[in-house]
């Protein structure tokens, strides 16, 4: 539901990550890692991103989203497993003291920038 806000943050962070010498560069792709527990709807995020990225260095950029599964570790018996259903008890010892190792990510991993070969292409 707050995908618009997330899209705006992505643009801020990505824009700030463009190296100083490449300020006029266009970002072609943003690589994101989003956990299954992060409550982000990918389609909705892309829709918002396309709207708010207009007139920025990220206009037309692709959002490449890698969804990370929910992986837990049992603090009692050290078992590790992927949680596919909303059951947060250890399948080994039935314990409930878990550490969530992944699944809550909402990270920008990297951005990919088009290398400019010619400068005066006069676009726009």
């Amino acid at each position, binding site marked *: *539901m707050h995908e618009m806000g997330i899209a705006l943050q*992505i643009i801020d962070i990505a824009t700030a990550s463009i*190296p100083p010498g490449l300020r006029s560069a266009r970002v072609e792709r943003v690589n994101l890692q989003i956990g299954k*527990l*992060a409550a982000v709807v990918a389609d909705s995020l892309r829709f918002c991103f396309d709207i708010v990225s207009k007139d920025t260095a990220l206009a037309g950029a692709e959002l490449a989203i890698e969804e990370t599964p929910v992986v837990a570790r049992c603090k009692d018996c050290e078992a590790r497993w992927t949680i596919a259903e909303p059951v947060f008890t250890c399948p080994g010892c039935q314990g409930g003291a878990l550490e969530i190792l992944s699944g809550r990510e909402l*990270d920008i991993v990297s951005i990919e920038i088009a290398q400019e070969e010619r400068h005066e292409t006069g676009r726009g």
Partner: protein
Amino acid sequence: MRPVEDKKATREIKVVTRVLAVNERMAEQNRRRFAEKRVFVINVMSSPGSGKTTILQKTLERLMPEVRAAVIVGDVATTRDADRLAVTGAPVVQVNTDAFGGDCHLAAHVIEKASDSIDLDALDLLIIENVGNLVCPAEFDIGEDARAVVLSVTEGEDKPVKYPTMFRLCDAALLNKIDLLPHLDYDKAQAIDYIQQVHPGMPVFEISARSGEGLEGWIQWLKGKIRSKINAES
């Protein structure tokens, strides 16, 4: 790692930043400020209509004046909840998220601004009534010490498994409107099972904000938390 497709000569730049990093930094700032002032902050979340405001009204009536409390109320629009809570005599700050873009949650910067208008030195407890929504508020740290989720017996028993992130994140659950149970087909044991399945060991308080039934356990839980914050080494 994706192999770089080199046809178009792209250059990959590592970023590795949490998208919500700005919010998280702000939340940490809030947390430090509340720790300095020894104010216990609880973030109360639920779906719309579960009875949050009535619970808070009754909670304030029982805690005050022994506990010095204030409330920040988040709503997409209107000041109706704030008006109801102001009757208790506690300072109430209404935040309408539509001024910040009609948001579905309270973010840390909103809490920072709202708490500016509260005298934190004269406070033991700050209750933050989040926007009624079981999805988004769970994603936004606002600098609180504890989180409580409210659900009511007029909703589906399966709320906890439909919104596992929320139920995992919270420190206590309040199952409200139990006075209505005789009139409903609600399977309370099943609902509590679902909560325990998503968050084993989480305390569940079965209450009726209307009749006051069961509120004592919740009040004692809160008091314990407030006491340990006041006595904490900052």
